[in-house]
């Protein structure tokens, strides 16, 4: 409170007792000086000289307007060209993406053609048998491994077998209107009459349900078989064609509790490979 009063008093004091700087003792000489300047200007034209001097000094300022205009112009031009460049970059990026897509599609086409070539090469061995092609649309691995193949013919029958570029891969499980379901040879439900290419002994291989794995049923302990033996289809029973490589013996195991050997065969084909499947009768 006292501080505030003190402050107000202080302000009032400085307001009331202020004396101006324009005392007569200074004012009249200043007026005299001004008259002298006026006289000097009248006699020697001082103001014109000063104005000319100022016009020289401030001439760069007069250019500011033009400089600003030019600056704005170049600024606009920079950003318009920048915009054009950005747009061009975007266009080029799109072109690159399209080309990459085309390249990918060409690569797919190439691999499809290679696959077809191999399939057609394979079909030569079918002699006069009719062949049909289908396109793989779906692949499922669980709970049951199968592939769905789109077909455009009604001539496919359930007794036909499926090939891809590797060779014999499976059998038709289900025949639908425009598609078929194919299960692999290693499916548990499938038994394939086969032959050991080394000993020419007829055997039956059975799918294990595991990928690429078969077992040979009831192979006697005294039989001639060893790891690495090639197993080919025998064609017996007319369910599968003859002479197609099914796999190689990968394991031969003897058990005391059984009179038979436990023989495991690893197949050489890839059930899920490629995009085209060939169907034919055995």
């Amino acid at each position: 409170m006292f501080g505030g009063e003190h402050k107000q008093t202080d302000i009032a004091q400085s307001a009331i007792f202020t004396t101006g700087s324009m005392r007569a003792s200074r004012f009249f000489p200043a007026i005299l000086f001004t008259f002298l300047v006026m006289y000097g200007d009248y006699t020697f034209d001082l103001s014109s000289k000063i104005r000319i001097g100022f016009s020289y000094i401030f001439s760069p300022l007069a250019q500011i307007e033009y400089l600003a205009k030019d600056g704005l112009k170049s600024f606009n031009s920079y950003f318009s060209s920048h915009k054009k460049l950005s747009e061009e970059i975007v266009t080029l990026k799109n072109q690159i993406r399209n080309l990459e897509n085309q390249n990918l599609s060409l690569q797919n086409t190439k691999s499809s053609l290679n696959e077809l070539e191999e399939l057609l090469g394979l079909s030569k061995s079918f002699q006069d048998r009719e062949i049909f092609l289908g396109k793989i649309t779906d692949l499922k691995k669980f709970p049951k491994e199968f592939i769905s193949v789109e077909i455009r013919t009604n001539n496919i029958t359930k007794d036909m077998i499926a090939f891809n570029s590797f060779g014999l891969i499976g059998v038709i499980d289900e025949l639908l209107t425009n598609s078929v379901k194919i299960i692999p040879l290693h499916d548990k439900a499938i038994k394939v009459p086969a032959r050991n290419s080394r000993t020419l002994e007829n055997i039956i291989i059975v799918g294990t349900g595991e990928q690429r794995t078969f077992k040979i049923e009831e192979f006697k302990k005294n039989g001639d078989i060893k790891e690495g033996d090639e197993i080919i289809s025998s064609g017996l029973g007319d369910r599968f064609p003859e002479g197609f490589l099914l796999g190689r013996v990968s394991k031969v195991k003897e058990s005391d509790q059984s009179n038979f050997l436990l023989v495991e065969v690893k197949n050489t084909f890839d059930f899920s490979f490629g995009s085209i499947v060939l169907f034919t009768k055995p």
Partner: protein
Amino acid sequence: MNNFEDKKSSIFNFYFFVGFSLIVSSFFEVLLNDYFLSRLTLPLTLMTLVYWNIATPRNIGFFWTMLSGFILDIFLGYFLGVHVFIFLLASYFSQRYFHRFRALFRLQQSLIVAIIVLIYQIYFILISKIFSLSIYFELLILTIISSLFWPIIYGILRYLRIKLTYGK
């Protein structure tokens, strides 16, 4: 001396701020004159000078008064000293009667400023020796505009002065 005194900015800064405001107002006056191409001008510098003479008569010096006068003389194309002379007179009388002027209401102050501006403009009409109906019209209009401008100039400069002096 006390807190109040401590908060005051230095006289040196204040002195330069007064000069700066006078030069800025001269600049605007010249710009307005160029823009409207009128023979008379809106006397922003005179009003600024009157304000400083009334608000802080101790701090307004001869130097800035004369400098702003010379600036106007040069850029408005008058003889050197024409503005300086009238500014010195205006400063002298403002300082002579600043106590009375401060005590007036803003409206009364505006009327006094209008009279000062009227005398100022008549001085320039006499110097220019242009006596026509249009210039009397200009004189009337500019006097009215100036009196309307006074509260604005007063408010702005007062705000800046308080800001600079007490930092509030």
